[in-house]
């Protein structure tokens, strides 16, 4: 990881504020008369359109894991190898775009409400990544709105007067979904592996041999994270090739096979993701101190990763859950994410 990447890492992505753009328009329209910008007159209509509340159902019950044993004698390793075989048999894609569509859920790090009535809220967001064969990449995002985390939180929220908007940590949280946006990713590597920037082309050129792929990933990890335990980061980077990058079928197969040989990847048993889809759960720690852990639910029949849950991140309340709604190739052109 060079300094430029470290800088991007340091700054991260500023928090999304769905009302900001409309607010800035309003401010520009409110400038003194001589400066008034005629193009801001559409503000009233826009603000009204954004205020429409849409009820969004986001499944809230956490994925349930059934431990192996009883009837199941199948090992985690054989599940990963089966997934590798499925991945390898995928035809080389001929469609125009690779796309992954995910639902991301995270607890807001501060309790909201007033007085006695304090409650946690969970924020949901749709994210999409698109990649064209010529290397152009787009990133789509749509905030779906916040809602009380649990039944007890919902009751505290009602007692608090059931507000639909909150101000917390320098931004506005709302129960309403935003309009969503799609932006071209330009000027920086659109993907990353172990913290190193990766282009579409570089991903296509990754080794299709498991040992060679693991070596390549390990090398990238050493550069990015010279200290601490590497195994977790290697597992994380390998698994990232399965679900968050346009990896070719043979690279996905190699990633599954390399994961099958990693001692720190634990098989937890059969599991159901938040959308009720069945798969096998695997987990690994991504840090030496064993506090940060990622659990993936994998469907070996389709070789797709169904969901990822990150637990134990310092400064983060609750789990960070990402559910994969769609992954793979399509001829649909990039568009602003639709509501799920």
């Amino acid at each position, binding site marked *: 990881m060079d300094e430029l990447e*470290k*800088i991007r890492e*340091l700054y991260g992505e500023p928090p999304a504020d769905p009302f900001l753009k409309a607010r800035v*328009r309003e401010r*520009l329209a409110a400038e003194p008369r001589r400066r008034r910008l005629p193009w801001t007159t559409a503000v009233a209509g826009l603000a009204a359109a954004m205020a429409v509340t849409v009820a969004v159902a986001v499944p809230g019950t956490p994925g349930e894991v059934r431990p192996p044993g009883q009837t199941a004698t199948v090992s985690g390793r054989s599940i990963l190898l089966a997934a590798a075989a499925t991945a390898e048999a995928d035809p080389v894609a001929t469609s125009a775009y690779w796309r992954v569509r995910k639902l991301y859920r995270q607890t807001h790090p501060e309790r909201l409400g007033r007085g006695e009535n304090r409650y946690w809220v969970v924020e949901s967001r749709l994210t999409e*990544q698109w990649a064209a064969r010529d290397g152009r990449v787009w*990133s789509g995002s749509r905030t779906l709105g916040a809602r009380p985390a649990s039944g007890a939180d919902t009751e505290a929220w009602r007692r608090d007067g059931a507000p639909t908007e909150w101000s917390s940590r320098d931004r506005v949280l709302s129960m309403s979904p935003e309009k969503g946006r799609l932006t071209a990713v330009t000027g920086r590597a659109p993907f990353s592996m172990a913290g190193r920037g990766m282009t579409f082309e570089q991903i296509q050129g990754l080794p299709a041999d498991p040992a060679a792929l693991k070596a390549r990933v390990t090398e990238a990890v050493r550069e990015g994270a010279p200290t601490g335990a590497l195994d977790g980061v290697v597992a994380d980077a390998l698994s990232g090739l399965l679900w968050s990058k346009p990896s070719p079928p043979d690279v996905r197969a190699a990633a599954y096979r390399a994961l099958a040989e990693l001692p720190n990847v634990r098989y937890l048993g059969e599991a159901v993701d938040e959308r009720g889809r069945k798969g096998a759960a695997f987990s690994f720690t991504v840090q030496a101190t064993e506090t940060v852990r990622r659990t993936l639910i994998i469907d070996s029949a389709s070789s797709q990763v169904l969901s990822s849950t990150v637990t134990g991140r310092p400064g983060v309340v609750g789990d*960070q859950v*990402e559910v994969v709604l769609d992954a793979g190739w399509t001829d649909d052109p990039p568009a602003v994410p639709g509501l799920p």
Partner: protein
Amino acid sequence: MTALSWAARPAEDAEVVRLSLDESERFSAVFDTYFGEIHRYVAQRLGADGAEDIVAETFLTAFRKRARYDPSRASVRAWLYGIATNLIGKHRRVEVRTLRALGRHGPDPDAPGHEERIAVRVSAESLRPSLAAALAGLHQRDRDVLLLVALAGLSHEEISTALGIPYGTVASRLNRARKKLRAALGGTNPMAESEEAGRG
């Protein structure tokens, strides 16, 4: 109204700005296309609180000066980054305070497509305060160039037009800034060095 930035082309942008001289409502398309990335850049440097004012000021300034915009010199995108950078320069104290906070707490989680950064971020945690301090210690003009490369992804050419400085000056400021950061982070990485040499 849904002007998607991926559909934007530099020549069309310039045409929009030209047409907006007669039909000022056309400037709305420039706002729609670039609001997102200009806000991101300003919010990264000044924090979410300070960003709103500066972004509004950026588009207001661009609108007022649109007659003086020269498409043969700079793309609309670079022109807007230049305006935003000049405005950021007036808020040095806010920027330093933002950097201090970033050094302590780090950024908000997660941009799509960078899932496994979590792991790296955790392992790189210890470097954060020294990186933030080193950035805060740079000359404003060096930091502007460095961050236009790192955060906005502008080329040397675009930075030269955005800030109105010679091409060679962009390169020398960038080199100076990167050298200072490397020194502050300690222990140079031979792999990164050789790769940079190859990049030219």
